[in-house]
């Protein structure tokens, strides 16, 4: 997911055009990530050291990792972690940018540092972002490290990537007590915890989501299309209920609620996670152990 997030950042900063970004994403799947690119971006080696090994490789058939260990630039443990990351989409993204000749690894590393500074992320948070682990990425974007919010959000985003859009990505989530939206579909559960899981957004964003999950060409975000969105929320809620059930947490789900008109969500504290899917923004709404009221806007 971080390939999409960082790509969007580079686009917004004017470093890449929309066309360049599109071509990079197209290239990603077929890219072979060089170990040197990984080692430098992980700061295990300097660019000079990687170049030196690349140069040494040109005259022999020895592997990059073997030479790096021999020269003391990498430990066997570091090499092992790099090999595991060769399938990570973020590194595919970096390699595709380099292959296209848009930027060097050093320049990308600078941009990554600027991104980190701008977002105020720690080094461990950056490690989580580039890890490719959705649960770790989600926790970086949540406003606090509440265990239940993190797990619910992780399940929702993983399921969204699996069933709606594998290229979707999230932005920084926030806590609020009021939110207005054009359309809303949600499901509430009660028991050991009260849980509200919902999706909000403008018509075109929810329409794309409804079409993807429902497998139907809905023309408008009417109650039928919102039913598909709510059914997805139901699946997320159910997966979460299943996971926490093993810890003695029991909840009863209620029928989904659909709002095909503008509404205001009001509560003490609830969490909003922006999801970008197909260039449109959807808000994933989570409310745990708090009352969330939905009021129509005239």
């Amino acid at each position, binding site marked *: 997911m971080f390939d999409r997030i960082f790509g969007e950042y580079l686009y917004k900063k004017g470093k890449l055009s929309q066309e360049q970004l599109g071509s990079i994403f197209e290239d990603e799947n077929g890219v072979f990530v060089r170990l040197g690119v990984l080692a430098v971006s992980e700061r295990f080696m300097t660019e000079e050291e990687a170049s030196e090994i690349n140069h040494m490789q040109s005259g022999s058939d020895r592997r990059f990792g073997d030479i790096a260990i021999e020269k003391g630039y990498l430990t066997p443990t570091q090499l092992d972690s790099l090999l595991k990351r060769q399938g990570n989409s973020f590194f595919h993204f970096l390699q595709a940018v380099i292959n296209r000749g848009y930027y060097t690894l050093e320049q990308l590393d600078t941009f990554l540092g600027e991104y980190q500074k701008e977002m105020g992320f720690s080094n461990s948070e950056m490690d989580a972002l580039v890890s490719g682990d959705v649960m770790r990425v989600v926790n970086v974007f949540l406003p606090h490290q509440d265990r239940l919010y993190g797990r619910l959000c992780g399940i929702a985003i993983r399921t969204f990537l699996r069933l709606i859009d594998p290229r979707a990505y999230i932005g920084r989530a926030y806590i609020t007590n009021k939110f207005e939206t054009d359309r809303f579909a949600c499901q509430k559960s009660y028991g050991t915890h009260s849980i509200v899981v919902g999706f909000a957004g403008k018509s075109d964003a929810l329409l794309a989501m409804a079409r993807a999950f429902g497998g*139907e060409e809905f023309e408008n975000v009417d109650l039928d299309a919102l039913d598909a969105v*709510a*059914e997805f929320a139901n699946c997320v809620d159910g997966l979460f209920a299943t996971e926490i059930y093993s810890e003695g947490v029991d909840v009863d*789900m209620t029928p989904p609620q659909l709002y095909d008109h503008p509404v205001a969500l009001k509560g003490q504290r609830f969490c909003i996670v922006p999801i970008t899917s197909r260039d449109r923004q959807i808000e994933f709404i989570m409310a745990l152990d708090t009352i969330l009221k939905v009021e129509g806007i005239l």
Partner: protein
Amino acid sequence: MTRVLIIDDSRTSRRMLRDIVESLGYTVAGEASNGRDGVAKYEELSPDLVTMDVTMPVMDGITALQEIIERDPKAKIVMVTSSGQHHKIVDCIKSGASDYVIKPYDPAETGRVLKAVAER
């Protein structure tokens, strides 16, 4: 040909189930969007197999399951739920459900369960 009654408040879920049912070569005898209508449709249509959502308005799936089993102890009913909470599934089976499937649907697995129950 096996005739199936689909009881689910979600239109999307009903359509997904209809696709799975038809892919097995079965026919959809009818649909209902809550437990009360589902019980009435069961009496009217006498289907060979029922899929029953657990969470529905007006009358929930477990109550509807119990009402149908009371009238027809041999009814073949597959419960549909998004939650894998074990004790709730056990409650359904104890109330007479033949089997269950968990959403989101895996068409192959859901089809396998429906076929196994229909052929009992």
